[in-house]
């Protein structure tokens, strides 16, 4: 069964450093998402991406964040200058399309980011 994959599984970085989290969505899916989950809290939406552009972003997704689909398979989240409060589990998700019956989002296993 096709799965969303994410790398790395764990990332430790120093405050102020840049990190890039990588995702390979399910092939033939058209919508891509990033969510984060701070330890013990609920999953929060960061950004949705369709047709090579951001569809929607939350207030968490400020100028320090960016997303990119550099090729036909990868989808990346970049944090330019990490802060302590960016420590969280970051989940990538994808869905086939945005219409009825195709909008179910499938999640990857996550990247645990720790900012020291």
């Amino acid at each position, binding site marked *: 069964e096709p799965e969303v994959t994410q790398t790395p599984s764990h990332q430790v970085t120093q405050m102020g450093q840049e990190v890039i989290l990588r995702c390979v969505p399910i092939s033939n899916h058209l*919508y891509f998402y990033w969510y984060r989950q701070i330890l013990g809290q609920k*999953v929060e939406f960061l950004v949705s991406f369709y047709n090579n552009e951001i569809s*929607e972003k939350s207030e968490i997704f400020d100028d320090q964040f960016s997303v990119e689909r550099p090729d036909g398979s990868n989808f990346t989240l970049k944090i330019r200058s990490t802060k302590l409060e960016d420590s969280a589990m970051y989940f990538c998700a994808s869905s086939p399309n945005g219409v009825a019956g195709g909008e179910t989002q499938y999640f990857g296993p996550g990247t645990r980011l720790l900012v020291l």
Partner: protein
Amino acid sequence: GESVGLHLPTLSVQEGDNSIINCAYSNSASDYFIWYKQESGKGPQFIIDIRSNMDKRQGQRVTVLLNKTVKHLSLQIAATQPGDSAVYFCAEVSNKAAGNKLTFGGGTRVLVKP
């Protein structure tokens, strides 16, 4: 109910019994709802979904009920098994025109006692 920090509502259930997990959603314009299961250290796993033009949908051992009048969702798990121990989240799809963002509820932890 909603969770605050680490204080997730917890449902303890005996193996073999049925479980009912409840969720209140906030946006009356949401028209698509999903239940996810999250095991420790893993990503949310799709369980079942329901559209707002339905009030009940059944899957394998799971049933989702939707009450739009009071903006309430429930997930029923029949014959709960140890492998069902996890945190369960409901999620609503809002703002479809902008990309189907999921808004998650606070989660309920289910502990299955053997």
